């Protein structure tokens, strides 16, 4: 049984359906990557998994337990964390305050978690008193991921974490994400940079028009010639 | 689609009939004079509400400076119709003109400097401020002594420059123009701002305008009021002594004094009605023209409209100026009706926001709705006093006749109409946000 899974999800805005029976799943300590062309419903799938968009049909489960009726903040309590693509920090607050806000639902001592996060993202330690809005794009993404990690989630969902950052920063971010997964966290992310993302993925989901077109391990998808031709630019 | 359209038409006719009935009831049970007095102010309110509806209903601009524009219209009425005070002109008229000339010069220099120095950051601002400041200081040297001399000239009866001594009907157009030109300047300054800043800025500027009118005695006599502004209609006294009028009032079986009052009010009513119908016709034409459609497109989706190459700010400026001009016309009419100019009556809470209630209650975006709102809200504003008194009577019934608390509440009962208006506004916003007569939306038919 997979740790976290959304099965046969149907969802959309108003009358138009965006997800038409798509399924995503991930295990502890693994990285799942969702790729696909624009408008395939990648971000919508994330929102559906996190409960920001109600499902018309289908299920979302953690360890087999159905959570489909829970609101996003209730899912946070169950160990899920979500990093939106944009507007994912509190710009006028310092890095440290961003982290504290990430841990809003916790009432225990935060210092160990913060120390762990500063170990993972050393740059944030040096900038902890700076307003998040004043940081560079890559650093801001680190703050965004770090904020989500503050609840010590079991499932981390990232919506295009590398959007708008340089390739070097992207590699750096991917390294961090691998580190996070190694601590036993299940990671799901949506990525535009499909090739690089699939390289670090344990499993990949290629979405087209809200349906799973291909589902396999990252490496296998990279090998698959039709995936390469259609989605990875040859 | 036809049924909804018919329904709204039937609703419209019904509400107008009800309104008419309410006025008739006032006529029968209170007095016809009161009824006509209410009706005349209803007409003026309807015109103001029409102007505000242009700005809010067509373009989504929140203008909280309505009283400023009404006051400008009123000033125009006074300045056009009052006879000039020759002595005051001799005492300081030339210096006043010179002072204004200095303002204009410094204004022009500042304007060109502003254009020339564009992109120089802070320098642009400081130079312009310097020029304006210099102009102001120089003008003060010219103006201050002149103002003292003018205000010293027969202070109990004039003490100001007077007006141009022209027919007052002319001032309705001039009032509109004056309000329009001030609106142009204000719009240039404020229309780039987001909607709620616009409200605060216009409210602030209109307060400044009214402040000036209250304090610049040489222009407006300040709080001493200008009374006896000539009328466009006959005076009661003249009517009462005219043979033909005596005969015809006898024929109708009405007392001459009452008949003269009614006749004068009816003259005003017909003048106002002509203006209202004319403006309504213009607004309706504008609304259904390509220009009006574009306006509503901009209102409904500013970003999309500007993406399609529509210059949103300049369209907004147009409609801001036109709407303000209509309010200015109404302001001139109000002073014409009152026969006096008193800057203290332009009170934002009592009137600016009252006009807003009219537009929202009537149905923003719909001209007939705005007019209806003007009628209904003004009617209730006047009659709310009776409602308030009645309420207080019921509420204080248990208290003894001599109780001081009862006396206090009876004395403050008129204030309840503010409360009632607030309640009406809140209830409409919540339960009928589209007003009594909703906007005709073509895409929903």
């Amino acid at each position: 049984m997979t740790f976290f899974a959304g099965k046969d999800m149907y969802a959309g805005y108003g009358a138009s359906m965006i997800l038409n029976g798509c399924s995503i799943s991930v295990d502890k300590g693994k990285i799942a990557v969702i790729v696909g062309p624009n408008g395939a419903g990648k971000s919508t799938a994330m929102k559906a998994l996190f409960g920001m968009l109600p499902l018309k049909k289908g299920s979302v489960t953690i360890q087999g337990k159905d959570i489909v009726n829970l609101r996003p903040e209730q899912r946070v309590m169950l160990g899920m964390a979500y990093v939106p693509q944009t507007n994912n920090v509190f710009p006028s607050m310092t890095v440290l305050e961003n982290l504290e806000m990430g841990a809003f639902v916790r009432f225990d001592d935060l210092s160990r978690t913060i120390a762990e996060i500063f170990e993972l993202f050393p740059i944030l330690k040096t900038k902890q008193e700076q307003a998040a809005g004043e940081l560079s794009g890559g650093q801001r993404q680190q703050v965004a991921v770090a904020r989500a990690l503050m609840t010590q989630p079991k499932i981390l969902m990232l919506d295009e974490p590398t959007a708008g950052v340089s390739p070097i920063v992207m590699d750096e971010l991917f390294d961090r994400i691998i580190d996070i997964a190694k601590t036993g966290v299940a990671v799901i992310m949506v990525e535009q940079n499909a090739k690089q993302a699939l390289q670090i993925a344990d499993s990949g989901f290629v979405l087209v028009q809200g349906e799973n077109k291909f589902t396999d391990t990252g490496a296998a998808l990279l090998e698959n010639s039709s995936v390469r031709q259609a989605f990875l630019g040859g | 689609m036809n049924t909804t359209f018919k329904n709204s038409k039937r609703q419209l006719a019904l509400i107008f009939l009800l309104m008419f009935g309410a006025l008739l009831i006032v006529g029968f049970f209170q007095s016809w004079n009161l009824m006509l007095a209410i009706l005349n102010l209803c007409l003026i309110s309807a015109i103001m509400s029409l102007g505000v509806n242009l700005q809010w209903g067509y373009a989504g601009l929140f203008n909280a400076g309505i009283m400023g524009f009404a006051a400008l219209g009123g000033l125009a009425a006074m300045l056009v119709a009052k006879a000039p005070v020759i002595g005051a002109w001799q005492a300081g008229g030339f210096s006043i003109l010179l002072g204004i000339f200095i303002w204009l010069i410094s204004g022009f220099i500042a304007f060109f400097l502003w254009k020339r120095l564009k992109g120089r950051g802070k320098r642009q601002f400081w130079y312009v401020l310097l020029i304006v400041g210099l102009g102001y200081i120089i003008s003060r040297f010219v103006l201050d002594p002149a103002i003292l001399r003018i205000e010293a000239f027969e202070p109990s009866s004039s003490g100001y420059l007077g007006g141009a001594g022209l027919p007052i009907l002319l001032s309705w157009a001039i009032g509109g123009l004056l309000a329009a030109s001030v609106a142009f300047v204000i719009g240039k300054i404020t229309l780039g701002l987001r909607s709620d800043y616009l409200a605060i800025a216009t409210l602030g500027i209109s307060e400044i305008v009214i402040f000036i009118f209250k304090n610049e005695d040489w222009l407006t006599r300040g709080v001493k009021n200008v009374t006896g502004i000539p009328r466009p209609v006959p005076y009661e006294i003249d009517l009462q002594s005219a043979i033909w009028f005596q005969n015809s009032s006898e024929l109708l079986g009405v007392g001459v004094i009452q008949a003269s009052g009614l006749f004068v009010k009816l003259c005003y009513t017909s003048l106002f009605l002509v203006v209202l119908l004319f403006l309504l016709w213009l607004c309706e034409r504008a609304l259904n023209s390509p220009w009006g459609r574009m306006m509503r497109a901009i209102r409904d989706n500013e970003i999309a409209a500007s993406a399609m190459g529509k210059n949103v700010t300049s369209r907004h400026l147009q409609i801001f100026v036109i709407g303000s001009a209509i309010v200015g016309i109404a302001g001139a009419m109000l002073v014409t009706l009152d026969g006096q100019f008193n800057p203290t009556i332009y009170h934002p809470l009592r009137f600016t926001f009252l006009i807003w209630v009219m537009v929202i209650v009537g149905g923003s975006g719909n001209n007939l709705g705005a007019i209806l709102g003007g009628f209904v809200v003004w009617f209730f504003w006047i009659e709310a006093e009776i409602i308030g008194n009645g309420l207080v009577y019921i509420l204080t019934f248990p208290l003894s006749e001599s109780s001081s608390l009862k006396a206090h509440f009876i004395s403050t009962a008129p204030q309840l109409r503010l409360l009632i208006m607030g309640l009406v506004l809140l209830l409409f916003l919540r339960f009928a946000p589209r007003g009594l007569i909703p906007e005709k939306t073509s895409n929903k038919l």
Partner: protein
Amino acid sequence: MIDIVNAITLLANYIIVPSLAYGSQLALGALGITMVYAVLRFSNFAHGEIMSFGTMISIFMIWLIQSLGISIQPLPTALLALPFSIIATIILLLGLDKVVFRYYQNQRVQPVTFMIVSVGVMFFLAGLIRFFIGTSKKNFDDGERFIIKASEFKQITGLAEGLSIRTTQAITVIVTLLLVTYIFWFLNKTKTGKSMRAFSDNEDLALLSGIKPNQVIVITWVLVGILASVAGTLYGLDKGYKPFVYLQLVLPIFAAAIVGGVGNPLGAVLGGYIIAFSEAFITFAYKRFLTYLVPEEWAPQGLVQMLSTEYKFAVSFVLLVIVLLIKPTGLFRGRTL
């Protein structure tokens, strides 16, 4: 030398002391408006009437306390009444939130619609307040009038110019200092305060982080209630209470908030003082001041006044318009929306 001291005393007496008091009142008002704007995202026109409501409750309580024969001379009874006024104002605001504002909050209406709603509330409150307390001016300062009188000051220092400090002015400044310090401590050091800032910064992310919007909104109204009732009562204590004036007061308060940068608490406080001091500096007649500083033959003839005192009120709007033109986000970087 003595002339310079005299000149400074003159400024202190006519500009600095009164402006510090008035600026404090504006600062508290602007802080309330800016908090509503930051968290609930609309310009609250009803704020002046909320202040007025708080003041009205203070006055009623003062009458009650006085009739019981309780007094804290030389301090004004208003200080005893203040806690009751705060509680009543908070109850009013939470009631308004529940009955009126929350509906629009949930609908996520345009800020301008929200603002019109607040105009409706303003009307309603204005009518309610005037119905209960009437429209006449009420003075409720029953404490010691002066800390130091101008004549005493002259006697002690031997200067030609006097400096008077009224008790209400000192109380205003001290209370403002305490309250503003508390608010800033709350916003920057407590978890709840930080969650308010987070909600203001990025509402969606705040929800994702488990911050409860209901809690944030309620706490905002509680703080606004404290600020408004204190600001209103202090203003009334200092200048007398007249319901009509509080409607006009909302304009300089808005000016203060916008000049400081709407949504920025620090900016609101500084904006309050900027408005108060500019009003005083621009409408002050510098004749006597200059007479002290320049040789006798240069002494000015006129009043040397930039604007006559009647325009005091207009200064804030002019400042407002200038700031909106030059730097719409305000001097201290408010929210740019």
